[in-house]
C-alpha cells in the first residue's frame, strides 16, 4: 500500500505542477464583430451626396450657387440668397415687380430740371412748406442767418458766378434749403454749414445725380423687401455651376438607424423554407421611400431572383417583406439619406 500511495502522491504532485505552469490563464477569445443578419442595407451615397449649386448652370468642377447681388455678410446664414434674415423657404420670384419699378423711375428724372430755373418765390414756398416736417425745422433758421456772412467770401464765388450767370449768387441759398430735409440730423453742426455755403454752385450740379441715387436706393429697398419674403442670407460670389439646392453630404444613416431599418424589414421577411441551396437565393432590391416612410412604387429587383422557381420565390418574398413592413420609421431630417435604399437579402446564413 505504501508504494501505491507514494506513486499516487508523486503523480498528483507532478500533474498539479504541470497544470499550474502550463494550464495558466487561457488565451482570451478573439471575438470578431461579425454581423450575422442576413439583410443588408446599402446607403446610396452617390445619390444622396449632393453639393450645393445651381440647377440650371452648366456643370463645372466645383458646384456653386448663383452669385448674390448683396455683399453684406449675415452671421450664421446657411442658405444662399439675398434676404436679410436666413429663411429656409425659397425666395419669391421677382419677375413681376421689376417692370413696375422701372416704370416709376423716369418721372423723377425730368423733375430736377425745372428746379434750377425756379426763383426765390419757390424758396418762400419751400420755406412755407417746410413747417410740415415740424420737428427738424428749428435748426433751419440758423443756416439762413449764416448765409449773411457769405458776402465776405463773395469775391471768390463771384469769379465762378460771372462765368455762368448773374442770377447764380441769388439762387445759391436755394439748394441749401432743398437738401436739408433729408440731412436734418447732420445739419445741427454749424461748422459744416459754413463749408457747404462756400461751394454753392457744384451742389446744384450734383443735385440731379443725387436724386437718381435716392431713387435707386428706394428701388433697391423695395426689391429687398420683396426678396425678404424668402431665401437665405448667405452671400455667394463665385460663378454659378451645376449642383443641388443644398449640400447633403453630411446626412448619412447611423449604424443603429440602419439596424433599425434592417430589423423592420427582417421582421416581415418569410424566408422560403426548404430551399435546395440557400446560397443562390441572394436577392438585392432597390426601392424609393417618400418622406413619410412609405414605399414609392414597386421595389425593383437588381440582382438575383432569376433562374429556378425557388430563386424567384425568394425574390418575391423579399419584395413582399419590403412592401408589407412599410411605412418605415426613420428620422425625417435625414430623408435624403434613405430616400433611395438598396437592400441585400442573403438567407444563406440562416440555414
Amino acid at each position, binding site marked *: 500500500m505504501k*508504494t501505491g*500511495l507514494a506513486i499516487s502522491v508523486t503523480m*498528483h504532485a507532478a500533474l498539479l505542477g504541470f497544470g499550474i505552469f502550463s494550464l*495558466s490563464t487561457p488565451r482570451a477569445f478573439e471575438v470578431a*464583430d461579425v454581423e450575422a443578419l442576413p439583410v443588408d442595407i446599402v446607403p446610396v451615397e452617390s445619390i444622396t451626396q449632393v453639393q450645393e449649386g445651381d440647377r440650371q448652370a452648366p456643370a463645372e468642377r466645383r458646384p456653386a450657387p448663383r452669385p448674390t447681388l448683396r455683399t453684406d455678410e449675415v452671421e450664421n446664414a446657411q442658405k444662399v440668397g439675398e434676404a436679410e434674415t436666413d429663411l429656409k423657404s425659397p425666395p419669391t420670384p421677382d419677375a413681376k415687380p421689376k417692370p413696375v419699378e422701372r416704370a416709376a423711375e423716369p418721372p423723377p428724372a425730368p423733375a430736377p430740371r425745372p428746379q434750377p430755373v425756379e426763383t426765390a418765390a419757390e424758396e418762400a414756398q419751400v420755406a412755407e412748406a417746410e413747417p410740415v416736417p415740424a420737428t427738424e425745422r428749428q435748426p433751419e433758421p440758423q443756416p439762413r442767418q449764416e448765409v449773411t456772412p457769405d458776402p465776405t467770401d463773395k469775391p471768390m464765388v463771384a469769379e465762378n458766378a460771372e462765368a455762368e450767370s448773374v442770377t447764380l449768387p441769388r439762387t445759391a441759398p436755394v439748394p441749401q434749403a432743398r437738401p436739408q430735409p433729408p440731412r436734418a440730423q447732420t445739419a445741427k453742426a454749424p461748422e459744416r454749414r459754413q463749408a457747404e455755403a462756400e461751394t454753392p454752385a457744384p451742389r446744384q450740379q450734383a443735385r440731379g445725380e443725387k436724386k437718381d441715387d435716392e431713387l435707386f436706393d428706394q428701388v433697391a429697398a423695395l426689391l429687398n423687401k420683396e426678396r425678404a419674403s424668402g431665401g437665405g442670407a448667405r452671400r455667394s460670389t463665385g460663378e454659378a455651376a451645376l449642383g443641388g439646392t443644398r449640400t447633403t453630404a453630411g446626412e448619412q444613416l447611423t449604424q443603429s438607424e440602419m439596424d433599425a431599418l434592417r430589423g423592420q424589414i427582417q421582421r416581415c421577411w418569410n424566408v422560403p423554407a426548404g430551399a435546395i441551396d440557400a446560397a443562390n437565393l441572394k436577392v438585392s432590391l432597390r426601392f424609393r421611400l417618400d418622406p413619410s416612410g412609405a414605399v414609392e412604387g414597386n421595389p425593383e429587383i437588381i440582382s438575383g431572383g432569376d433562374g429556378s422557381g425557388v430563386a424567384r420565390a425568394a425574390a418575391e418574398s423579399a419584395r413582399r417583406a419590403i412592401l408589407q413592413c412599410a411605412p418605415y420609421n426613420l428620422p425625417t431630417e435625414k430623408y435624403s439619406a434613405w430616400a433611395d435604399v438598396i437592400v441585400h437579402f442573403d438567407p444563406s446564413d440562416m440555414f
Partner: protein
Amino acid sequence: MESVALTAPGGELSIWALFWQAGWVVKLVMIGLLGASIWTWAIIVDKTLAYARMRVALNRFEQVFWSGQSLEELYRSLSERKTTGMGSIFVAAMREWKKSFEKGARSPLGLQTRVDKAMDLALAREMERLEGKLGFLASIGSSAPFIGLFGTVVGIMTSFQAIAGSKTTNLAVVAPGIAEALLATAMGLLAAIPAVIAYNKLSSDAAKLGARMEGFADEFSAILSRQIDEKVSSRQRAEEYA
C-alpha cells in the same frame, strides 16, 4: 474588422488563481476531492501490483502442485513460510487433514467436511484481501461527481450573490466566479473517472483470480476426498483381514 478581447477585469484565470479565489466551502471540497483522487490512485497502483503478484504466485504454485511432487513434501516446504492464494488454501487443507489423522479421527465424512470448511475459510480470507479497498474506488466513482457538483453549486451561488452586489451583469464580472465554481466539478470528475474505470477492471480481475482459486480448492477437495476414500477402504480391508 474590429475585434474585442474578453478579459477578466484584472485577474488571471490560471487554475491556481481560481483555487485561491474560491470560497472556503469550495476550497474544502476541492481539497477533499484532491485527497480522494490521491487515495484512489494509491489503491489502483497497489491493487494492480498485488494482482500481478498474485497471478505470478498462482502460476508458480500450479506448476509445482501438478509436477507430481509429494503433497507431504509440498506441505512441509510451504508451511514454513508465509503463503498467499492457492498456497494458503493448500496449507489450510493439509493442516486440517494432518490434525485429523494425527488425532486418529474415525469418521471419513466428518474429515471431508472439516477440510472443505478450512479451505472455504482460507479462500474467503484470500478473496477479502484481494477485494479489500475496491469498495472505496466504487464509492469515489459514484460520489465524487456529486461532491464536485456541490462545490460548483455553492461557488455559483456565492458568485451570483457577488454579482448581485456589484450591480452589473457584465460577462467579465460573471465569468470568473463561474469558472472558479466549475473547477470543483472538474476535480470531482477527475477523481471519479479513473475510480470507476479502475473499479470495474480490478473487480473483474479479482473475480477471475477468485474463480481460479475456487477451482483449485474444488480440485484439491476432490483429491483429498479420493484419498480419504482410499484410506477408509484400506482400513476396512485391514479390519476384514484382521
